[in-house]
């Protein structure tokens, strides 16, 4: 119980308990039927009326019916079906003129659908890629009816297996068909030229030429074709094209397109590539040891969540700064920006139903949710600035509002290094001697180590020899012989000149009593006088400690003390079983007199 509470205390401090929570529970609808992820959430004042709406690119249950949903407060304002699964949603300003209502961009399949005022405004399609010449050839033959659908299928499958250029969507759909539908499909599609388009995997916005909050932004797209594209906000032409070694899945953008910008793209090969304005290829590369599951930029630090249940912080040059382990798998991540306090932090939704908020590596807050959170978004919603929107795995919608008075403080516990690390040590100044010594150590390190080792071995040898000798001559107070396992321990009491010497003799054998022992004292007769220097020991019952008392009188008046040796002997044997040396104290009675 105690252990459990102490291990949980760091979380408990940062955690929102009901009474002093930092969050107000504004809304919870477990049946909202939203299935999406953080990239498909966006908040914007779509109508320019000061009331911010929530845009959700909904995958639909089981990814079946993709929809674009717009929420106002807790209710759905509008809902419209989408032709393909959404990949990302973003809001951006297209032009300078008033009213400055942001446009909504929704990436889905090979297209970006742009809405203004929630009405379809523009559809941008990715440019066609050159189709596979073999595939082209096959369809040309089909067009002239020189090839039957079955052969066509076999040939296309052959191309799919080994060709470097992937097949077009048309061919792929053809290969999925049942035998009876093939004929009709070929007849319907053979006259059309085959087109090969790639798919958008991720989307972000990049300010065009001003850093203002309400400046015109470009769209940045990442494609399945391992490319990054920057689109013009007005004309939707491709302004810049960059290629990557792998398929980008998360994008982080900073800067302005016309001035200088940085792109960080987390890719499917587990690497993060950094690109600058003038670079056509990545400038830096961070090789993660695991797959990235989220990428967030906090000021100048890139925070990456990996599928090894940890968050990593990197500089924009790819230097690793820190790693924080998570208690469960990370499902989603997003940025928390509290503008009124200038705070930027990372939110991470975990599989155990927690949302953790980190500022660098310090845990700021833990929110427990009824279900695992799969998408997160923080910002102005409705008329409230600091609103946190979460959708759960079961399709629920959770809206929490940060209290006006709430301040995130870095809770102790696991946060940061231990306090001892910050303590300044009293390191002495570097003296000449120290420097010389260090130099000598550096030069003759091996020899010094050898000398030390040799001395150490010698020391051990001597210790072992002394020990063996002690055992052999029974000099130790513990007898190790099998017949008489004995333990002796002596106590001297008194101030002098008469001391009381008590020997505690114990038979440590399991069952056998010992008989026929003698105790003999060896001492300097000039200094001490004992009434009995040699006496018999009674039978020793195993386990009991026998106190044997005797008086010692100190004869010297010069304050000298000496050693008294105690020998325990067996009757008829000259070699002692064990022995003890008693350091007698100085007789204080005489010294005082």
């Amino acid at each position: 119980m105690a252990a459990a509470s102490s291990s949980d205390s760091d979380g408990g401090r940062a955690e929102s308990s009901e009474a002093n929570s930092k969050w107000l529970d504004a809304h919870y609808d477990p049946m909202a039927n939203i299935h999406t992820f953080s990239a498909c959430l966006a908040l914007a004042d779509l109508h320019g009326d000061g009331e911010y709406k929530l845009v959700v690119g909904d995958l639909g249950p089981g990814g079946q019916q993709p929809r674009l949903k717009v929420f106002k407060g807790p209710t759905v304002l509008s809902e419209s079906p989408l032709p393909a699964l959404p990949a990302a949603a973003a809001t951006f300003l297209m032009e300078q003129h008033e009213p400055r209502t942001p446009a909504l961009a929704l990436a889905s399949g090979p297209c970006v659908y742009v809405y203004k005022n929630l009405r379809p405004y523009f559809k941008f399609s990715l440019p066609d890629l050159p189709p596979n010449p073999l595939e082209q050839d096959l369809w040309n033959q089909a067009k002239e009816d020189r090839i039957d659908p079955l052969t066509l299928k076999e040939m296309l499958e052959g191309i799919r297996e080994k060709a470097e250029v992937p097949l077009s969507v048309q061919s792929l759909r053809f290969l999925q068909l049942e035998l009876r539908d093939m004929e009709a499909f070929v007849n319907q599609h053979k006259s059309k030229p085959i087109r090969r388009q790639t798919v958008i995997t991720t989307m972000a916005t990049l300010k065009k030429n001003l850093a203002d909050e309400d400046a015109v932004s470009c769209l940045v797209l990442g494609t399945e074709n391992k490319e990054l594209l920057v689109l013009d906000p007005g004309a939707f032409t491709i302004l810049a094209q960059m290629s990557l070694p792998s398929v980008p899945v998360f994008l982080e953008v900073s800067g302005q397109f016309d001035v200088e910008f940085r792109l960080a793209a987390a890719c499917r090969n587990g690497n993060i590539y950094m690109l600058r304005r003038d670079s056509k290829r990545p400038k830096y590369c961070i090789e993660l040891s695991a797959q990235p599951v989220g990428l967030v930029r906090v000021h100048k630090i890139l925070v990456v969540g990996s599928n090894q249940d940890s968050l990593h912080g990197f500089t924009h040059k790819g230097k690793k700064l820190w790693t924080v382990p998570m208690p469960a798998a990370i499902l989603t991540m997003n940025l928390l920006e509290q503008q009124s306090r200038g705070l930027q932090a990372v939110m991470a939704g975990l599989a155990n139903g927690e949302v953790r908020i980190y500022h660098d590596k310090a845990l700021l807050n833990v929110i427990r949710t009824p279900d695992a959170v799969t998408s997160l978004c923080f910002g102005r919603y409705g008329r409230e600035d600091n609103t946190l929107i979460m959708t759960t795995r079961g399709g629920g919608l959770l809206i929490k509002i940060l209290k006006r008075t709430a301040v995130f403080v870095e809770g102790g516990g696991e946060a940061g290094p231990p306090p001892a690390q910050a303590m300044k040590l009293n390191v002495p100044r570097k003296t000449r001697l120290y420097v010389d010594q260090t130099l000598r150590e550096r030069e003759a390190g091996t020899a010094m180590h050898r000398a030390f080792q040799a001395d150490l071995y010698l020391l051990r040898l001597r210790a072992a020899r002394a020990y063996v000798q002690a055992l052999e001559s029974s000099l130790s107070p513990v007898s190790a012989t099998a017949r008489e396992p004995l333990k002796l321990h002596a106590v001297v009491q008194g101030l002098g000149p008469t001391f009381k010497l008590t020997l505690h003799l114990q038979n440590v054998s399991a069952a056998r009593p010992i008989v026929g022992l003698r105790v003999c004292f060896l001492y300097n007769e000039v200094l001490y006088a004992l009434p009995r220097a040699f006496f018999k020991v009674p039978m020793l019952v195993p386990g009991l400690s026998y106190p044997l008392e005797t008086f010692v009188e100190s004869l010297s008046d010069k304050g000298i003390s000496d050693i008294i040796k105690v020998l325990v002997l067996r009757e008829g044997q000259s070699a002692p079983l064990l022995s003890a040396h008693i350091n007698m104290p100085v007789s204080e009675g005489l010294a005082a007199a």
Partner: protein
Amino acid sequence: MGLLDRLSGLLGLKKKEVHVLCLGLDNSGKTTIINKLKPSNAQSQDIVPTIGFSIEKFKSSSLSFTVFDMSGQGRYRNLWEHYYKEGQAIIFVIDSSDRLRMVVAKEELDTLLNHPDIKHRRIPILFFANKMDLRDAVTSVKVSQLLCLENIKDKPWHICASDAIKGEGLQEGVDWLQDQIQAVKT
């Protein structure tokens, strides 16, 4: 206080002055309510979001109100507590159609009620469940439930459904407030 003032006060010619705080979240309609309570020739045509606060005056049948119309925007809400001492009554305005921010209104109300300048005073509080004209507005009973008004035991309070643009329900509230203030004074 000159002799003449005292005399007119005794005769009931001069109305007693009371200071009232008008609080509530941004966009709840505080300024619109105050504007509607002013004499029709002094009303302004367009209402803009209040910055900081503004002081307005209007008269009821027996009292002269001086209203501190506080801004409800998040960044100005910490100004409210500086005026609690002076206020003899509080008007708290709620946007009945803003279901999402009802918790924020409750939070601000709880902070207000627990403030040392308010907590131990028997200060009357008038709630306006405003914007009743909107389609998604909840009833005043529901508003009082959501704000847990039944927990206010030591202060007289009253909730009025109102529509500040048309002026409905405002007079009822002000009459109640006037009665309460006079009850406290006598």
